[in-house]
């Protein structure tokens, strides 16, 4: 009598762990599924030109999602990234066109590298403002970054009075040419923006796995009090993740301006939501402590390929939104189911171990 339930428990434990493995790979499975589906349903989907174009689209969201992933792992949220994209694009565009007027009859023009560095610095600075609000003034991350969202967007609009900075070709005599390289240039057959994505992603993944800072990011999200008592500088960790998120947003701002050779102050609106979606789809837990850079990148690809593929199939953009929403919801539901299953399997393994 006692034998039967025990054996049943054993059987369900092993089938449980098989199911668990499947669930853990769900984002990857979803990626393969959308790839297979669209390569059948949409003509030209698998052509090299289309794949590269899609990768460029996905890259933009992937940058933001990586920054977002670290923020979410610490238990926070960064709603300001879309606005930082817009503001940083405007900064870059302004510097290319106007330089900085010193008010004493001189105007400094920067070369493209300097402009890129200044723009990145602006993004990091806004991230630092988020971080300071959250760590020093104890503002909830949702509210702090929501406030910065509006401030940054407002500043972007103010910078040009709401107009676009067009035609960012630059002037050879001022040394401001070459801004288009980021968006249109290629190295070894791949767009520059993809190379940048690869570098930043590898860096972020390395940071998460092999550095004390990465370990501390997870510890802060898993249990902030325990982390503090263990000597983790919680405030510094939080400052870093928001600054990194700002840095990623600045990269996106640069790339978009460079691709369009123009800066528009409304660029990046609602990008933060796509970034959160990619992170969550990639297995990042909104309650903190869990998430991977690799998962987030895959998540960004699933979302990006889904929307590009649906466009190619001619599905209306309204339906696209519905489908995207459903995918996100399903992802989270599966995530919860996985947690429960995981706990049950662990309990069974413990019971078996005695």
């Amino acid at each position, binding site marked *: 009598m006692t034998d039967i339930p025990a054996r049943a428990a054993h059987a369900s434990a092993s089938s449980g762990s098989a199911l668990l493995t499947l669930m853990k790979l769900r984002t990857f499975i979803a990626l393969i599924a959308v790839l297979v589906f669209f390569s059948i349903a949409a003509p030209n989907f698998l052509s090299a030109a289309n794949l590269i174009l899609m990768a460029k689209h996905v890259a933009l969201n992937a940058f933001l999602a990586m920054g977002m992933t670290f923020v979410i792992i610490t238990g926070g949220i960064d709603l300001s990234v879309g606005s930082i994209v817009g503001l940083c694009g405007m900064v870059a565009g302004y510097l290319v066109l106007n330089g900085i007027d010193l008010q004493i009859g001189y105007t400094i023009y920067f070369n493209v590298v300097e402009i890129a560095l200044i723009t990145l610095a602006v993004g990091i600075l806004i991230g630092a403002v988020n971080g300071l609000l959250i760590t020093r003034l104890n503002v909830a991350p949702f509210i702090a970054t929501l406030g910065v969202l509006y401030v940054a967007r407002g500043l972007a609009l103010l910078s040009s009075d709401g107009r676009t900075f067009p035609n960012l070709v630059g002037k050879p005599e001022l040394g401001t040419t070459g801004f288009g390289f980021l968006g249109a240039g290629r190295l070894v057959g791949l767009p520059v923006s993809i190379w940048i994505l690869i570098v930043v992603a590898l860096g972020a993944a390395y940071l998460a796995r*092999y*550095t*004390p*800072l990465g*370990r*501390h990011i*997870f*510890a802060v999200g*898993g*249990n902030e*009090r*325990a*982390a*503090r*008592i*263990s*000597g*983790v*500088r919680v405030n510094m960790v939080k400052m870093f993740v928001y600054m990194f998120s700002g840095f990623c947003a600045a990269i996106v701002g640069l790339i978009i301006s460079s691709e369009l050779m123009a800066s528009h102050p409304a660029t990046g609106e609602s990008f933060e939501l796509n970034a959160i979606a990619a992170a969550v789809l990639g297995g990042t837990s909104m309650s903190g*402590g*869990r998430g991977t850079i690799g998962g987030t990148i895959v998540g960004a690809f699933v979302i990006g390929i889904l929307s590009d593929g649906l466009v190619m199939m001619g599905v209306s953009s309204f339906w696209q939104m519905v489908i995207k929403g459903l995918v996100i919801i399903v992802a989270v539901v599966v995530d919860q189911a996985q947690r429960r299953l995981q706990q049950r399997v*662990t309990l069974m*393994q*413990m019971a078996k*171990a005695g």
Partner: protein
Amino acid sequence: MNTVLSQDVILKLEDVSKVSAGTVAVKQANFEVRKGAVNVLVGENGAGKSTLMKIIAGVEQPTAGRILLDGNEVSFSSSGDAVNRGIGMVFQELNLFGNMTVAENIFATREITNRFGKIDRKEQERRAGEFLDRLEAGTRPDMLVEDLRIGQQQLVEIAKAVSLDARILIMDEPTSALSASEVEILFKVIADLKARGVAIVYISHRLEELIRIGDYITVLRDGRITGQEEMRHVDTQWIVRQMIGSDAKDFAKADDHVPGEEIFRAEDICLPRATGGLAVDHVSLSLRAGEILGIYGLMGAGRSELFDCIMGRHGHASGKIFIDGKHIRERDTTRRIRRGLALIPEDRQREGLVSILSVASNLTLASLSRFVRLFHIRGGDERQAVTEMVRELSIKVADPAQEVSSLSGGNQQKVVIGKALLTGPKVLLMDEPSRGIDVGAKADVFRTMRKLSRDGLGILFATSDLDEVMALSDRIAVMSNGKLTGMFDRAEATEAAIVAASALGHGPALARLAPEHGEQR
């Protein structure tokens, strides 16, 4: 045992046991509750009092045994069940909604509504007012609970239980936050309830209270009931004896190493309480290398707060600390750990572990800089340190990559200890290191403490277990109400003297009792 008429017994527990998270919290308890009387329950922290009461109140279900109410067997699947049968409970940790008014709290889940289902706020407040007046709580029913002093909140909690019109009313440490005059009023209310035939179960650490209002006393130790008597037949000596017992636990033997030079000194540590007063009140102590200094005290005596101050967790604490005679000016935890301090916190789940990380990541969390070259964690070095620590502390884990939450309580505690040891501390602060872990793990922890002291670490450990403090310490400090009220060498320490010192400042009655205690021993 005694000659009480059995018809007085309203509730009876027969051979009730409770196993939770691998430890036995209550072992085959037989407990009788008599109506029209105050049934007192005492025992040290962790003896199982609260668990036993939660079983009666339906909050937890017994693993084995029967509950008889009025002679009929009952089982409560929830606290609502128990309330319906006339059992109310005042919880030790206040179960109140801070964002609601006093009246709303008292009538939570039993809202008074009119015909249309709308809450009748006026009527609720009127009735709540009556209960509050009986307790002379000095609060208005329309005040928000979070705006009340903690003592007043406790009165609200009591009013809530009284309003249930329960036949059995359980009070778990109802006076822990009350002032002397509030306690008097509560006792009047209890006498009133008693006269109306209500059975009261009263739990407290304050012996003088128990002797004053108790009719029957039951003593719990390590989940077992060790004594049951009518109160008029017992004295404090009897209670203390039953609480402490004489059966030895497995404490590792002391060796005869002689402590070295002073390694740590705290001077004049003060920590203001949010509600006024001092949680740590001008505490100074010193510790020698290789010495184990036990800090004994009841709940709320300020032991954990003292440790927090030493670790630099409270920016507004004052006082100085010295390691190896050098003044530690760093005020933050990170740098104090670097100077050789490490804390093993009392609450493993909330402060000790990051439960979703692996055993290995938890172990090295505080000492990552040891394994880092430039900014790269050298995996090999880290793994080696983890393996060594797992072996040294005999942590039972198949694979250190396992999540730490899958371990048993004892092994989790060892992980917390291992994490502290990997930082290479000179002074180890251990807050209730044996709480909530099984006997085998306890013995391991004690053995580790001995070994560390032999290696020259200074160990400060806080406990509310008398056996532990007596068996492990080279010296014993006693805290009460934030103050250091006693410092004994092991040779001269007696249990009675320690208990007496731990009750100092807990109201005048016990303070008078205290010296008499010491003499009788």
